[in-house]
């Protein structure tokens, strides 16, 4: 291609990169160094390392970890069984449809389902127990998050399982490997890229969730995302909010490095 003429289409695109990729990161870094009066300070960073924020970070990680683990535990077998069905593309489509329904609507559904007079509590009563407050607990938060993320975990795992050459499994079985050994030594390692991609699209968003925490967890759970929203929109302390965002970006980069793939994956 003629290089001079071919560079012109890049101009709006490069402008986009400059304004919406580089500038926002720079601004977040800049604001993280400002106090409430706009003076330069490292106080926000010092504050982040106080027990209050460290505890919040730790609990945010713990919840994101739990959410990722449970999502994986339920998603892997689902993806595996889906590849075994007839019309597997159609079934996969049916898994994807719920992920197209607006996130807020699905979260809203659980306000009713987990409510004090909701169907779950009605069921509990049938078995002779007293209704419990399920909404605004850790359980409801983790459950709803897993529910939201499951399709995004299934898709990459399904794709990598689907790409796998089935004769490798037959070979392993012929050589005397048990079903479990075959899975552990052959199937799982071959699909690890799908698992990593799934973890990426679950763990990072789980760290930064905020509407599920607000709607489902009440103020029981505070994730890094909730804290950023709080600082920006409620406390109007953009400096502290930016500092938390800087750490969130750092954690994101670390997660990406840990789950780095050999072949280029995609986001679901």
């Amino acid at each position, binding site marked *: 291609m003629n290089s001079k003429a071919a560079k012109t289409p890049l101009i709006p695109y490069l402008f986009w990169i400059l304004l919406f990729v580089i500038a926002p990161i720079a601004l977040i870094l800049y604001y993280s160094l400002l106090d409430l009066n706009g003076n330069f300070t490292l106080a926000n960073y010092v504050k982040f390392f106080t027990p209050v924020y460290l505890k919040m970070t730790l609990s945010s990680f713990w919840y994101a970890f739990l959410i990722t683990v449970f999502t994986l535990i339920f998603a892997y077998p689902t993806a595996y069984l889906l590849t075994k069905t007839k019309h597997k593309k159609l079934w996969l489509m049916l898994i994807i449809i719920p992920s*197209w329904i607006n996130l807020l609507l699905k979260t809203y559904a659980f306000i009713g389902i987990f409510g004090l007079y909701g169907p779950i509590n009605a069921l509990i009563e049938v078995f002779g127990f007293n209704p419990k407050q399920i909404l605004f607990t850790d359980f409801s938060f983790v459950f709803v998050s897993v529910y939201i993320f499951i399709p995004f975990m299934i898709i990459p795992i399904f794709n990598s399982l689907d790409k796998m050459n089935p004769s490798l499994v037959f070979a392993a079985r012929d050589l005397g490997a048990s079903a479990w050994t075959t899975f552990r030594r052959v199937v799982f390692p071959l699909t690890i890229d799908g698992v990593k991609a799934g973890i990426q699209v679950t763990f990072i968003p789980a760290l930064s969730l905020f509407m599920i925490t607000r*709607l489902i967890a009440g103020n029981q759970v505070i994730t890094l995302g909730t804290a950023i929203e709080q600082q920006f929109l409620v406390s109007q302390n953009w400096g502290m909010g930016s500092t938390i965002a800087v750490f969130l970006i750092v954690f994101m980069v670390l997660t990406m490095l840990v789950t780095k793939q050999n072949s280029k994956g995609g986001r679901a």
Partner: protein
Amino acid sequence: MKKLSATSKAYLVFVFAVLYAPILYLIFYSFNSGGNMNNFESFTLEHYQAVFEDSRLIVILINTVIVALLSGLIATVIGTLGAIGIVSIKDKKMRNTILSLNNVLIVSPDVVIGASFLILFTMIGVKLGFASVLVSHVAFSVPIVVLMVLPKLLEMNTSLIDAARDLGATKRDILTRVILPYISPGIFAGFFMALTYSLDDFAVTFFVTGNGFSTLSVEIYSMARAGISLTVNAISGLVFAITVLVVIGYYFINQKAKSATSEGQR
């Protein structure tokens, strides 16, 4: 192929049941004449009627669609041009740098994007509202379009372009008559994805929307925070119906396209 065992089938049924239960639950109670999601009193369409009579809600719905279509369109133009530009970069290092920058917004948490855009708009003096929401949606859709168009461009045979040039096509002709038609499936896929991202986005919009402007997600959030309202159920019924229609349409178009290509190969 081995048949699935009963346990496997039961597990799949369980997963599908859990995935669909909340949605069906919402839709079921959207027909409830009682005001809650616990006791079904009698069948009614009043909540659907309420959606269509609520002019504020209709305005929000129109806003949401306009933002999605417009941002999708603009992002598709910028992204497609960007992808064409990226392919023309010969320097490998430069190309990889740009591609990494391209992916930053895709992997970044929504809250961080929302917060940083809020700072950006405040600094350069964009008023929060329609403009800021539209621009943010364009911003986070561009990289998706690039990722959808790029593979098509990379698989395109460059001799097509050489041939066109030898036959005397101008650069403009080459772009509009050779490159764009070839990569159009990628462009459509990109536009479609941008549309879905925009319709679905909550977190970024929540940060950059001012007081006067709202999209469906943001509105549902504030309604949900206020408590249960069966109007939201009616909205979800409508959203689900539209989604299923789109999926069915998409599936049939795909089948048709597939059978068309396989016939073409014969």
